[in-house]
């Protein structure tokens, strides 16, 4: 029996719309609508959904960057609402809105974030060496972030987000903007982490990525979880893509 590492209960989040967009009296956009799901240790959970479905918003709540309006989520039993500091030490979070300062080098940033996470010096040096080698960052370890390519920046961001070797990893669109080679490095690494017993939740709108990597999949549309099952069960008789279109027309009632 797998242990439940993440338990989300009735997560709800709305945003106040800018005045210009407040048509037909609607003041708020319900970005995540009463979302409940669980993820288990040692698996990769995929959050699949179209643009604006609320994937990033969900992951930001799990990572304690924003607070749910109502509901709660527990990571390894720690509440994101009542103990955000406890959660932050246990997770690694990657999303495009978290940037690294252009002025610094990967080497410096690795040390800096390790210190913030309280990683001991010798552990840090050893991890840095192996992770930089794994991602081919070693050549660029002393080049300023500003001068790195998009792919290299993303690889550094991934490495930095897990300097403290967390057991629970939250990646928002980790292969966004990467070429196939770099994307493969990343997905291979994610499989490797799963092999080490880490739990991963990632969001994406790329069906092939889900099919290749995920153990279980939650399909989000318009702030709600419209399907949640193992990949095998979801893709029993058709591809993930076809399954998604079925779900989509079911939910929207044929409107597109």
């Amino acid at each position: 029996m797998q242990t439940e590492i993440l338990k989300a209960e009735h997560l709800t989040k709305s945003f106040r719309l800018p005045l210009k967009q407040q048509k037909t009296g609607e003041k708020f956009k319900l970005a995540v609508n009463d979302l409940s799901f669980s993820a288990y240790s040692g698996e990769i959970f995929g959050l699949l959904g179209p643009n604006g479905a609320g994937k990033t918003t969900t992951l930001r709540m799990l990572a304690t960057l924003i607070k749910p309006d109502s509901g709660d989520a527990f990571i390894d039993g720690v509440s994101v609402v009542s103990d955000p500091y406890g959660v932050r030490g246990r997770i690694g979070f990657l999303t495009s809105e978290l940037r690294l300062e252009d002025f610094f080098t990967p080497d410096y940033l690795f040390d800096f974030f390790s210190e913030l996470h309280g990683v001991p010096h010798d552990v840090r040096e050893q991890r840095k060496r192996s992770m930089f080698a794994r991602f081919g960052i070693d050549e660029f370890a002393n080049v300023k972030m500003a001068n790195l390519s998009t792919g290299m920046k993303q690889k550094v961001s991934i490495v930095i987000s897990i300097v403290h070797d967390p057991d629970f990893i939250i990646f928002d669109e980790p292969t966004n903007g990467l070429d196939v080679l770099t994307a493969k490095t990343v997905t291979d690494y994610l499989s490797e982490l799963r092999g080490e017993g880490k739990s991963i939740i990632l969001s994406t709108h790329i069906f092939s990525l889900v099919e290749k990597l995920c153990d279980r999949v939650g399909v989000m549309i318009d702030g709600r979880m419209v399907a949640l099952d193992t990949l095998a069960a979801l893709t029993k008789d058709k591809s993930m893509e076809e399954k998604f279109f079925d779900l989509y027309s079911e939910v929207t009632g044929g409107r597109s």
Partner: protein
Amino acid sequence: MKAVLTIIKKEFMRFFGDRRLLLTTLLLPGIVLYAVYSALGAVFANVMQDSSVPVAYVRNMPESLGEAIDEIFDLRDTDLTDEEIKSQLVEGDADIFIIFPENFDDLTVGSDVPDVSIYYNSAQTSSSLAYSSVVALLDAYEQSIANVFNINSGSDRYDLADSSDVSANILSMIVPMVLIMLLLSGCVAVVLESIAGEKERGTIATLLVTPIKRSYFAIGKILSLSVIAVLSGISSFLGLILSLPNLMGGMEVDFSLAAYGVLDYFGLFLVVMSTVLVLVSLLAIVSAYAKSVKEANGLIVPVMIIAVICSLVSMFVASPPMGLYFIPVLNSALCISTLMAGTFGIVPFLITMGINIVCAALLAVLLGAMFNSEKIMFNRA
């Protein structure tokens, strides 16, 4: 607490590792101030030199005034015609042309009122100055003839201020104003970039997912930025102080800063440091609230205005009531002013330090709370 050090270390790395930043915030302000004030001083000195010996033509020089006039003017022979002299005035070759009646001295004794004509050219500074000095001289002479009473007519030295008193007085007026403005501009330069800039670029958000306490992050930012702002302020201050002898070159005031003792300077340093803490925290809060550096630039204007008003007020309050020392920034300006004037008191100083430190601490707590607020840290659109 170790996290505070980690943040400070990073901010210093960012600042001291960047040659451009070092140049623009540390070296440039001092050098520019020095250059500007020295150039200004050179211009002043030039103006004064020009006006020191005005060229004068005098007809019918009266015996009673001959010596006095000869002392202040470069007198020329008067075999030229009136028209020739006047055209020299127009050309700027001469500064003043005075025509006394032939028997001026006799006339002044009687009840007649003699006419004196003074030709000058108000378009020329040196000529205007010469005119004023002649008028002043004649006024004084007129009064001495009427002689109802005398003021300071003996050979005694009547102005008892010595040169360093005058200099202390001037410094106590100017320094608080200048110092606070320089410190403020140093603070603005570093704080906006480091807080509004980082927020805009999304690099603060990256720190917010680490387990570092928001308040430690706020304290680390405020302390490190304060040190940098003080360094920038010191650079400007040095530029200013070093240029003072050049600026005042033409005047007889001795701006010897050696008049102040080690304790004065130490007190000044403490006041400056505590002021910078307050200014940096204030600006940090405004910057954290703003969505971009550009917006922050607009929002800080009220803070700048308040600071200017405080430093202006300190110029006009000669003996400030104790209550004023409870107002941040104003208390600093007053402290600096009294330090410079030599009327410095220990109680106002302690109140100022206490108020500023408490104030900065409260603002740091507020900044920490702001870092914790998603509405403030992630307000898009």
